[in-house]
């Protein structure tokens, strides 16, 4: 065999290996139900913060507990051992990475999507004009 062919084979082999490792490392977007089935495997859950139930943050242990509702409407208690993110209550959507345990869901990372972080979707406030017009 020629050297170029050997190199080519090597490259393809590494490529496939890397691809498999990447697929292995990738998690899935799941719901809490899937997370329960797959525990203790880590998953990513896109959810909403449940503002009706209490959000508790204990600064001495920096433990945050709250309830989140996933896309199928299931609610779960989430425990996050990090300081409460800024503007947590204002988040529109939260992406939780972590795993299920029998008591709830342990998040290792929380990404928040805030409605106003980059754009103001409300647009122009035109209330002023009407009151001044009258």
């Amino acid at each position: 065999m020629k050297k170029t062919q050997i190199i080519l084979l090597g490259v393809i082999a590494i490529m496939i290996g890397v691809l498999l490792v990447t697929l292995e490392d990738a998690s899935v977007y799941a719901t809490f139900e899937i997370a329960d089935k797959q525990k203790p495997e880590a998953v990513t859950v896109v959810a909403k913060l449940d503002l009706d139930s209490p959000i508790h943050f204990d600064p001495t242990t920096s433990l945050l507990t709250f309830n989140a509702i996933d896309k199928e409407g299931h609610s779960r208690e989430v425990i996050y051992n990090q300081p409460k993110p800024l503007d947590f209550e204002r988040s529109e959507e939260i992406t939780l990475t972590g795993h299920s345990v029998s008591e709830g869901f342990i998040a290792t990372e929380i990404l928040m999507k805030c409605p106003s972080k980059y754009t103001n979707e409300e647009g122009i406030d035109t209330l002023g004009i009407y009151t001044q017009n009258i």
Partner: protein
Amino acid sequence: MDYIGEHSLFAFLGRASVAMAFAGAIATVFFYGLYFIGSKKNSEKSSGLKSAGRLSFGAHSLGVLGTIIILFVALFNHWFEFDYVWRHSSLDMPMKYIASCFWEGQEGSFLLWTTWHVILGWVLIGTSKKWEFGTMMLLAMVQVFLVSMILGIYIGDFKIGSSPFILIRELPENIGLPWTEIRDYLIRLPSLRDGQGLNPLLQNYWMVIHPPTLFLGFASVTIPFLFAITGILEKKYYEWVVPALPWTFFGISILGTGVLMGGAWAYEALSFGGFWAWDPVENSSLVPWLTLVAAGHLMMIVKHKKSAPATALFLTILSFILVLYSTFLTRSGILGETSVHAFVDLGLNGQLIAFLGFFSIGSLLIYLLAWKKYPKSPSEDAFSSREFWMFIGSLTLLLSAAQITFSTSIPVLNKLIGPDGLLPVLNNPMAPPVDAAKHFNSLQIPFALIITALLAFGPFLRWKETPKKLITRLLPSVIITLVISVLSIWGLKLYDPLYAALLAVSIFGLISNADYWLRIVRGRWTTGGMALAHIGFTLVLIGAVISNGKKEAISTNATYIHEDFPSNENILLPLNDTVSMYPYYISWRNERKEGHNRVFDIEFYETEKPSTWNDFERQELKPVFTLHPFIQMNDRMGNVREPSTMHFWNKDIYTYISYADLRPLDEKNGDWADPMEAILESGEEVFLFNKYLLYCDTLNVQNASINEISGEIEHLDLNLDLILKSMDGRQTAVVLPYHLDGNEAHTSEVIIEEEGMKLRFDGVASAEGKFNITAWEKKDNEPPFVLMQAFIFPYINLLWLGSILMGLGTLLAVWKRVYRAINESKK
């Protein structure tokens, strides 16, 4: 209709400039393109076409220039009737950040990119000689697509581009609204008096210099691509590398610097906890750099050995396609859930896909159709030749780029084969790896090991074949490396095998390149570019390995919660308490407002080293430095925590506030909390908050009047006399008023300051002869505190030093080629 105070003339001029830039680009493509049709030998015809092409490009350049000037004028003068100005700037913004406003939005950053292409285009016209027709035609094609992104016209319902000159009243969502019909709407609409402001994350000097550098890098990736395609079209399969090489090294230098500047910004202004987070946006600008480095090395092989140009062509084309792909990823909104700093979706996805599709499919077609015509290598590369190992290195770079691209493209894969995708293969959408750093490090460090090893011994090899005795020249470097590596791994206690290996190999690369340059070629400046760039690269790796591998969280919270939660990295700082945070003692001294920022002053103390036991007993704290981590408060865009870092020559102390009570300062002390209801009758006592007894004495009717006709109470004033008894025997008499006016009850709260209690008489309870009372306790003086994270990044300065050397080295490599070209043309 004439609107009062509106700068509609400028809006018109702006749009006209964009239109001129667009038309100019199309004309440039047309005139330069005509050259390729029919006979090319006719020099008379070609010189006419050349002038026409240059003239069109001039018109295009004027259009772009006009667009920039008008946009800047609008930003400087705060013309908030322009949607772009309103969205990206505000009155209270420091002028120095106006430039950041300019490129905060997609429109502005496209414009920035376009501008660099214009400048580089004129350099091409001045220097490329016979390559001008092909390269300028292709460059103008890129410009057509770029300018179309800011056209802002509608064809039917299809929107082409998003204009930075659109007025707010012209936005589709506002058209037809009543206020757009008012002549003086600018005066009447209070919300138009100030803009939305710049994202606080971008109010940082890095954001003034990082985007232009990065886009100059992107623009300089375009130029080698132009030469590659022109080379294929004109069948100059070898010759294209000569003009393309200096551009490639220029691109490597600028793009590399731009990417690392992004890292510096993340380190300075974001609380990621590091300079690199493997964020999709960072990744997608790193990938074209990797392939461009590979392309540059392959071009050198083609130039020196006249070997097969197919891979060099491929990687050059691929680098440009990857720039476009990166543009697509960051601007289409597809990264949405996975990245913290992607652009906002502007609804240009169709156009972005067309841009990416046109150039990737088009150039790959041109590349593949000419496949059979590419010259083959005359012979196999020898094992001991420089080109063989350079080729392996380039392939490794390509593999590394492929891996990063694949992992970063998971959101794209979801769109293609996810459950809601075009071809639903997956049951559940894929998510990025849970621990991105671990994932990328485990795969990328092996690639980095190979690449660094190759750049360590590569320079010692010769083209074609290396005599065996020349290889022994490596011996001194190997020996020195062994000694230094063992010492530094042992000294740093860096025992992670991958990190330790990468450190050793990087040290090898550093020493062998320095040795080669200074000893073997005696510091010849033409070799200096290569050596410096390699040394810089290895220093970047050494800095990254040590600062990451030995990154140490010194803020720890030792409270044990559960085995699932390892003690975490947030230290609790009560105000004015001195807390031990090894090797320092720290104290949170003060909280103050500074503009939009809430600044926290953290004082660091050291103890003097005790020499005797007596000293140990009486050791004193002496202040060493103060850090000022802050939280940028922004109602509209959310609050951002920003780190504060103490730089030493050999380490950084990096801190940020991870949690703080962000209520206004004056609101913070004292809060009425835990309302408690009590029902009692005269002579009864009730326990309050486990601290007090509340005794109900009598109810006094002060004033009463009864409506004589209906017999209902018209007016009633009641006073309830109570006695509040504290545990230590203090007694306080309290009178709670209650006032009834017709059917309306008025209650008022009575505060007993010295007891920290608030009471309210709510009226007569439903039970006979009982009264309802609500009590609050003052939850004050819960001592204020913040949570902070602090890290030591050892030797991170090596990384910054390395980036500077790498940038300078590659620029020296550019200068070497330019210098030679000038000298050759003189001969």
